[in-house]
C-alpha cells in the first residue's frame, strides 16, 4: 500500500494530519492549475484552498479504484471553470499576474538576458491562455503543465478522448493566432478596476 493510499484511508477515517499530508503533496499541481486557469495569484490561492476544502468534505465519496490526482484535479478544474463563468466580464491585470510568483528571473542563471526573455515568453503565453474557453484552457494546462494523458484529461473534464484531442488542437490554433496578434514587446495597459468601461 502506498503512502498516498494510507493517507487517504486515514483521512477518510477523520485523521486531519493525514489530509494535511495530501495537501502538501498536491498543493503545487492544484495551485498551478488554478493559477493558469484564473490568471491571478490571489484567486488561484483561494481556488486551490476551496478545492482542498471540497475534497475534504467529499472524501468519503472518493472511489479508491480511481486515481486520486485525477479526482482532485477534476474538482479543481470544475471549480475554476465555474468561477470563470461567473466572472465572464472581468478582465485580468497583466501587471498583477506575476506578483508573488516564483517565475522571477533566476539570478544564478548564466545568462540573465535569456532568462528575462524566457520569462517574458511565459508571461505572453500566460496572457494568451486567458483568452481561451475555460474548458479548452483546462485541457491545455493539464496536457502541458501537469503532463496528463488525453485519457486522464477526458476523465478529469468528463469529455471523450476525441473531444479532448479536438479541443487541444483548437486551443493551440487559437493560442497561435493570439501569439501572432500580441508580439512579445507589446504589453497591454493595466485597466483600472478591470473593466473596459474605465
Amino acid at each position: 500500500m502506498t503512502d498516498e493510499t494510507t493517507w487517504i484511508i486515514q483521512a477518510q477515517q477523520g485523521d486531519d494530519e493525514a489530509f494535511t499530508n495530501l495537501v502538501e503533496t498536491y498543493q503545487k499541481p492544484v495551485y498551478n492549475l488554478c493559477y493558469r486557469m484564473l490568471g491571478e495569484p490571489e484567486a488561484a490561492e483561494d481556488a486551490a484552498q476551496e478545492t482542498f476544502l471540497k475534497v475534504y468534505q467529499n472524501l468519503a465519496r472518493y472511489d479508491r479504484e480511481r486515481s486520486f490526482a485525477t479526482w482532485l484535479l477534476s474538482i479543481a478544474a470544475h471549480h475554476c471553470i465555474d468561477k470563470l463563468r461567473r466572472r465572464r466580464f472581468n478582465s485580468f491585470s497583466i501587471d498583477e499576474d506575476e506578483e508573488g510568483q516564483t517565475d522571477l528571473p533566476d539570478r544564478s542563471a548564466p545568462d540573465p538576458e535569456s532568462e528575462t526573455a524566457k520569462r517574458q515568453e511565459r508571461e505572453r503565453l500566460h496572457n494568451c491562455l486567458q483568452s481561451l474557453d475555460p474548458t479548452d484552457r483546462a485541457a491545455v494546462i493539464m496536457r502541458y503543465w501537469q503532463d496528463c494523458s488525453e485519457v486522464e484529461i477526458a476523465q478529469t473534464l468528463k469529455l471523450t478522448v476525441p473531444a479532448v484531442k479536438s479541443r487541444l488542437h483548437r486551443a493551440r490554433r487559437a493560442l497561435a493566432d493570439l501569439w501572432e496578434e500580441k508580439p512579445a514587446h507589446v504589453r497591454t495597459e493595466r485597466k483600472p478596476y478591470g473593466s473596459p468601461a474605465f
Partner: protein
Amino acid sequence: MDHQPFENWLLDNQPLTTDQKRQLNTHLRTCSSCAALAEVNLALKSVRVAAPAAGFADRFQVRLVAKKQALRRRNFWGFVVLTLSVLGLFGWVSWPVLKDLIQSPVNLLASWISSLVSFWASLQAIFRAGMVLFKVVPGFVPAYIWAVILFAAGGWSLVWVVSLMKFTKYPQGV
C-alpha cells in the same frame, strides 16, 4: 497561403522525417501563422509550474478550522430554529385541546374516555360480525373455489418473492 500539411504536422506532434523537417522549416520562414504555431508549441513545452506561497498547508488548516466552526454554528442554529418551529407548530395544532384541558379538564377527560369506550365497542361488534361470517360463508362457497383462491394466493406470493429477490440482489462485478 496553404498551411497544409504543415499545420497538421505541428498540431499532431508526430515525429517528422528529415525531408519533412526541411519542408517545414522552409514553410515557417514564409508563413507567420504556422511560425506562431511552432513558437506556441515550443513555449508550451518549456512551461514552468507555478507554486503557491510558502505555508499553503498551514493556511489550509486555518481555513479548515474556520469552516468547521462555521458549520458547527450553522448546525446549532439550524437545530434551534427547527426545534422552535416544531414546538410552535405543535402548540398551534394542539391549542384547542390544550385550551379545553386548561379550562375544564374533567369534561375533556370524560369525552376522551367516552370516545375510547365507543371505539372498543365498535371493535367488538366488528369482531363478532366477522366470526359469524367466518362460520357461515364456507358453507355457501364450493370447495373448488377455495382451491382456486388458494392457488391464486400461492402464485401471487411467489411473484412477490421472486420480484423482491430480483430487485434487492446486490450487483456483482461492476
